[in-house]
Each structure stands twice: as C-alpha cells, then as structure tokens.
C-alpha cells in the first residue's frame, strides 16, 4: 500500500504527528470506529470551514460536513488511492456543498447571495483603537468581497488558503489544473473590482 501521509499544520492541531491516512482509511473501510472517529475529529473543523465559506450558513455547513464524513464512513472501501485521502474527502465535501446550494436555490429562489453568516473580524493584531477600527473596516470589506465570489471561485480561493496545490484543487473540484488557475485569476479580477468599487463608494 502506498503510504499517504499528512502533516497537520498549526491551525488545525497543535500536534505535528504524521498520519498514514491510507492505512487509516483501510481500517475505516473495515468499519473500525476508532479510526473513523480520529479522522472525524481531525477533518471536521477543516471541512466545516471550507463548506461554510461556500454556503455562508452555519446550519447548512454543519449538515454538509456531517453528510461528507458519513459518506467517508460508508464508502471508504471505494477509495482507489488515485489521490491523497485529503483530496478525496474534500472532493466529496465540494460535491455535497454544490448539491446543497442547488437544493437551497430550488427552495428559496431569488434570494440574493449575501448569505446569513455574520462577518466577524479578528482585531487582536493591534492595540491602538484607531488602527483597530481601520483594520476591522478593511477586513470586513475584504470578507464581504470574498463572499460575493461565485461558489466555484470561493472554493478555489479557500482551498488555496488551506494550502492545496492547483493539481490537488483540480482533483477536488473535478477540473484541469489550468481551469483552477483561470478560476482564481477571475476571482482576483472580481475581488479587485469589488474592493476598488467599494472603497470608491465609501469615500464619496
């Protein structure tokens, strides 16, 4: 079996264990609940964050995260080892989130894409209240602009921030790496337009 390892980065966990995820998934395919629970606790925060950015609804994001990890439990045996375990799981999460978006749109047509998650800003970086306010305003504008990207662009931007390569992202969202690059390039253009327009309107 090919050893597929993943080093957990700082924000995911304080540990720096290297885990053989292929072996772990093999155990899960044999209904090993302990292996599944270890994987569950490791992946839940990352998948939740990823789908929350796409869906902008904590309740729906929790449902999609749960469905994704349940699919890992029921179909671990179908994993063919063509990609890393992480890429495979995020691929399931992406498809489940898209399905949720389509089904939500079917039920609530013509709601604007603002979503219902509140934009909270982390301003722990500076103690000066004036600087804090300025950083908070800018950060809020940046988050609002990111939220206005389309789901596919948001997914790519988020996966980049999570540290995935263009090839891995291509496997997750099921398109060639060049399309991933193009998608990010357009996302960048859109962010530029939104942020420049936003500040122009604010300064008027």
């Amino acid at each position: 079996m090919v050893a597929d390892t993943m080093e957990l980065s700082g924000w995911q966990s304080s540990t720096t264990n290297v885990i053989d995820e292929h072996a772990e998934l093999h155990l899960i395919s044999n209904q090993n609940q302990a292996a599944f629970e270890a994987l569950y606790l490791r992946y839940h925060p990352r998948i939740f964050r990823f789908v929350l950015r796409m869906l902008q609804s904590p309740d729906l994001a929790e449902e999609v995260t749960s469905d994704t990890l349940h699919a890992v439990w029921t179909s671990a045996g179908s994993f063919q080892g063509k990609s890393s375990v992480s890429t495979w799981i995020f691929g399931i999460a992406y498809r489940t989130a898209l399905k949720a978006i389509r089904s939500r749109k079917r039920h609530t047509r013509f709601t604007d894409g603002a979503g219902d998650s509140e934009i909270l800003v982390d301003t722990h970086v500076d103690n000066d209240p004036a600087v804090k306010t300025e950083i908070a305003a800018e950060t809020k504008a940046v988050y609002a602009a990111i939220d206005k990207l389309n789901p596919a662009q948001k997914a790519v931007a988020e996966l980049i921030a999570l540290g995935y390569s263009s090839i891995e992202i291509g496997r997750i969202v099921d398109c060639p790496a060049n399309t991933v690059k193009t998608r990010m390039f357009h996302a960048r253009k859109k962010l530029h337009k939104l942020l420049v327009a936003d500040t122009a309107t604010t300064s008027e």
Partner: protein
Amino acid sequence: MSLISMIKRIPMRNSHDELISSLPWLVNGSLSPEKSAKLQNHIDQCETCQLEVEALTKLQTLQNRRAETVSDAQASLQRMRLRINESEKNPVAAAPLPWWTWPLNIVRQLTGDGVRLPSLPTHSATAAAVLLLATLLILQSDQMIDRSTSDYSVLSSGSATQTGIDLYVRFHPSLTAQEVDQLLADSSMGNEILFTWSQLDSGEYKLSVTESLEGSSTSLTDLSEWVEELKSRTEVLDVGLLPNQP
C-alpha cells in the same frame, strides 16, 4: 500599506498574467522548489509581482484568520455516532431496480426460477439498440437546436476563445418570464460577460454574447463560470451552445 491600497496599485492587465496566475500557490507554499525559485527570480526584479505577492499573503492570512462560527467537532461526532447506530439498526432499503428490468422480472416471477427464458443473442440486441438510437437521432436533428452540441461539457472544454456565441438555456417551468428577465438582467450587470436574450418558447431562451472581458471574443472558461453561477442562483434544466448562424 493596507491590502486595499495595495490592490489599487496593482494594474489589472499586464504582460505577466501567466506568472501572476501561479503566485497564489507560491504564497501558499505548494509549488515545487524549482518552480518557486524560478518565480522568485522574476519577483525580485518586478515591482508589480512583489506587490501582488504581498497582497496575496495578506489575503490568505485574512482568510485563515477569519473569526467566524466554529462548529463543535465533539458534539458533531456524538451526533454522528447516533446516526451510524441508527443506520445500522435500520439499513436503507436497496434502490429500486431500473424500469427496463421490470418486464423480465415479472416473467421470472410468473414462471419461476426453474424455467429457462428465451433470450436474444447479444449481437442482435446490440444491433437493435443502435438502430433505435440512430432513428431517435435522425428525428431529433429536425429540431432547431443542435442537440449534439447542446452539452454543458462543451462549455468547459478549456480556455479557448470564440466569437459570436449563442447559448440555449432552459429554465424550470415554474419561473415566470418576468423572473427570468430579472435574473438575466442581474447576471448581465454583475458579470464580466454581457449578452442579449430572447425567448424561444416557454422557459426556453436564446442568449447572445455581445461583449466580454476579451472584447468581441469570449473565453469558454469564462462562459462556463457564468453558467455555473447562473445554475447556483436558479434551476437551469438544460444549457448548451447553439449552432452558429451563417
């Protein structure tokens, strides 16, 4: 310098778009050392790319630092344990058999397993299926829309550009004409692709791309992105390219 001031200083169009499209992966550290070194050589001499890298670093930091609702993984795991136990107690019934197997199964049930059913030789059945498919295709070709190209996959076939693109879009029948008009008007304004549209039939529209970021030609990837966005906003039943008019 703030992120927005940086973004304002970065020109949107420049001669190193190809290099710029790789920068997000340089910043997230997933590029190979060779590619990183090659890019770094360029960045050291290019002010625009330095600014771009600085802005991307700040953007990715902001994304990773975003303070938002955090889900309780332990509580979620507890619910998952219950879900798994529940599904083990009440396994989901097997999916119903496809409709084309019903007649055979009815005959099997009536005659019992012991009776051997006459079966067509495989090659005869294949020939009959091909004949039926060909007939259906001939009948379809009379329609105005070229169904052989009315396939969404055509749109996501790469970064090629094309001029004079006409799209066929069929919306869910529950959408009124006014709702579709409103939706298309919003999409046209909010996106980088401009188009005009006309109604072909109830729920069916012809969209003609008039302008895009590339000017008169349109990138098929851009178009597929736009369609993806439209699909995420409402129920699109069918979409495809219309054959070019002479």
